[in-house]
């Protein structure tokens, strides 16, 4: 059967990791390639690199990072942040990324989703979405852009469905309310989106324990769970999370 995926997210800036990592205290913690290789060895199913500078200026360091990761990490990985043109998509995929994540640029220019999918296929185009609770919206959630700082008029559910029809092959759904709390994922949001689109949904924001992950992967109906600080802090390894999930009855790759 298809396994639930565990995805580790790394924030990078000019090709370097921005947060330290406990378990790598004795090595160059600034090098995302080292971290990616370590998580790969621990059995992570997929990686996401998020370029937090997210600008259209010099993407050289990020592209260099992608190709160095691709030389030694033989699992799929996605790159997000600052990808706003078809050329950005092309360069990122050709440097070795399996997928690109489009967030704010997809809101500003929805056609970008279809243009990217037409070249590399739907499976390469991931919609990144930051959603926040808002009772005035039809689904109860509003879409934000620019790292959650700018509100849009978009309803989260409507935008997810539209992105699928435009050609997105997957959605990484980040809850602004849950992000950083380590209190658990936003289950109702995740479940609502996952039940209403035909493409895989990756839950993001709020992971603190394997039990949180198990809940979003079962009750929340997510196809994959994205984590960051759980493993960056050194509190867990990917392997320890996977064995905890397996004992909670979640199908994971050993």
């Amino acid at each position: 059967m298809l396994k639930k995926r565990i995805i580790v997210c790394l924030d990078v800036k000019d090709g370097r990791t921005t947060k330290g990592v406990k378990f790598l205290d004795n090595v160059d913690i600034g090098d995302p390639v080292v971290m990616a290789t370590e998580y790969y060895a621990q059995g992570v199913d997929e990686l996401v690199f998020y370029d937090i500078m997210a600008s259209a200026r010099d993407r050289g360091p990020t592209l260099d990072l992608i190709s160095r990761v691709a030389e030694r990490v033989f699992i799929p990985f996605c790159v997000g942040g600052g990808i706003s043109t078809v050329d950005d998509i092309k360069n990122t995929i050709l440097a070795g990324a399996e997928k690109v994540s489009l967030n704010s640029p997809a809101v500003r220019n929805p056609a970008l989703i279809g243009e990217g999918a037409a070249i590399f296929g739907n499976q390469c185009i991931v919609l990144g979405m930051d959603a926040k609770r808002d009772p005035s919206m039809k689904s109860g959630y509003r879409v934000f852009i620019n790292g959650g700082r700018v509100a849009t008029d978009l309803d989260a559910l409507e935008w997810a469905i539209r992105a699928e029809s435009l050609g997105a092959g997957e959605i990484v759904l980040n809850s602004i309310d849950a992000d950083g709390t380590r209190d658990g994922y936003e289950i109702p949001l995740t479940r609502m989106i996952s039940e209403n689109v035909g493409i895989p949904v990756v839950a993001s924001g709020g992971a603190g324990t394997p039990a949180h992950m198990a809940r979003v992967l079962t009750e929340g109906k997510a196809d994959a769970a994205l984590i960051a600080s759980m493993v960056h802090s050194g509190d867990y390894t990917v392997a320890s999370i996977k064995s905890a999930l397996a004992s909670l009855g979640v199908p994971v790759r050993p």
Partner: protein
Amino acid sequence: MTGIIDYNAGNIRSVERALASLNVEYRISKNPRDLENADRVIFPGVGEAKFAMRELAKSGFDGFLRDWAASGKPLLGICLGSQVIFEHSEENDTPCLGLIAGTVRRFPRDFLASGLKVPHMGWNGVDYRNGGSALLSGIPDGTDFYFVHSYYVDPADAAVITATADYGFPVPCGVKKGNVEAFQFHPEKSGRNGLRILANYVGVSLPRGIEGGSSC
């Protein structure tokens, strides 16, 4: 030398990088002539069937692949390369190479009702059929490999199926007919077990450094 067929179908560089990690001799080329003297070829690819067939025709790789299959030398198709070796694809009603009899079909539209998403994306267990394949030797039956596809191969003769993956039904994901062999999943993106398939194909053992484990 292992040839890699480059026909503008997505990120085939990942196959090149996987071979590089095995320290084997390979050549990647957009020109069939460059690969004529290869000992074996890999036919990778992601993307859309009609576009792929057009690119194969443009580059001359369509004729190359037919001649190669007839020559008896080993051919390994991956993902889209495992699909267009069949006779026909439902993806934009595309006539394909016909190296193996059968059709490429889309997953049913009503899959979502049973909670199954399309694309079939992620790691799925691969179950051996008809005795599996020599390329899977050293890999336990049921091992997970990385999949991403919306269409699947439906061979006319079930005897060519070497492996299936359970996704609503036993989806054929490994086929072999004589010297032509293919996998729907991505060995080049499936960690060390995937690299082992490529190492088996090329006829080398996995270098110790990439065996994975606690440190790399």
